[in-house]
């Protein structure tokens, strides 16, 4: 929870803020060095110097973290854009395939109807000269039966 709160607060600060903080820390450190030469300010410099060093350290650390964070955020953004484009392309592929399937199915159906009609046209002629032996439908039906269906049934029994 604390981590999340801190991340919320710190995460919204611009990267430049940490650079400024580092600069301020370094400046404070050197200013404390200069002030130490003046006797009235000397006691304060003993406090200012370590605080300024700490501020500079935190600033450097956070600037590094913020820079890495910015880099990753940029990478995530680029990747999200790529994913968006890919999803749109993927949808286009689906649409193209769906349309083509629709058209080709129509062609297949039309051709089937055409051949069924041609059979009807010559049915009398075909049936006059040829009578099917009862073995023929059986052979045809056996061949048309899905061979894997019987195998699967056999396995499950």
């Amino acid at each position, binding site marked *: 929870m*604390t*981590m999340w709160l*801190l*991340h919320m607060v*710190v*995460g919204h600060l611009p990267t430049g803020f940490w650079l400024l903080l580092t600069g301020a820390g370094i400046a404070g450190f050197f200013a404390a060095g200069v002030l130490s030469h003046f006797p009235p300010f000397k006691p304060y410099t003993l406090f200012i110097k370590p605080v300024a060093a700490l501020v500079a350290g*935190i600033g450097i*650390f*956070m600037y*590094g*973290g*913020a820079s*890495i*964070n910015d880099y*990753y*955020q940029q*990478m*995530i953004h680029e*990747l*999200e854009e*790529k*994913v968006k484009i*890919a*999803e749109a*392309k*993927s949808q286009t*592929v*689906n649409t193209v*395939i*769906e349309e*083509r*399937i*629709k058209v*080709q*199915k129509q062609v*297949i*159906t039309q*051709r*089937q109807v055409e*051949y*069924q009609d041609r*059979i*009807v046209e*010559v*049915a009398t002629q*075909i*049936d006059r000269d*040829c*009578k*099917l032996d*009862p073995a*023929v*439908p*059986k052979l*045809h*039906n056996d061949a*048309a*039966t*899905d061979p894997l269906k019987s195998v699967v049934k056999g396995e499950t029994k």
Partner: protein
Amino acid sequence: MKKLVFLSVFLLTGCATPVPVTVKFPAAPKDLLITCANLDKVQATEENLSEMMKVVVTNYGKYHECKLKVDSWIEWHTKQKEVLDAVK
């Protein structure tokens, strides 16, 4: 000690964890999700060749439809893979 813990937590907030971006598995066209139909059969008592021919023609049609589905699946997979590979 409390201050030290607070400082550690504060400093560790600099280590941001990137959010992983995932690509959704693309949905296939609805037509491709229907299995191929079983072949029609001739009536056992059928004597007319023309009637048998009708069944054969219907079955050829079913084969062509099934072939269309398989070919479309191959094309779908190839193209979707190309699209997905472009993201990586």
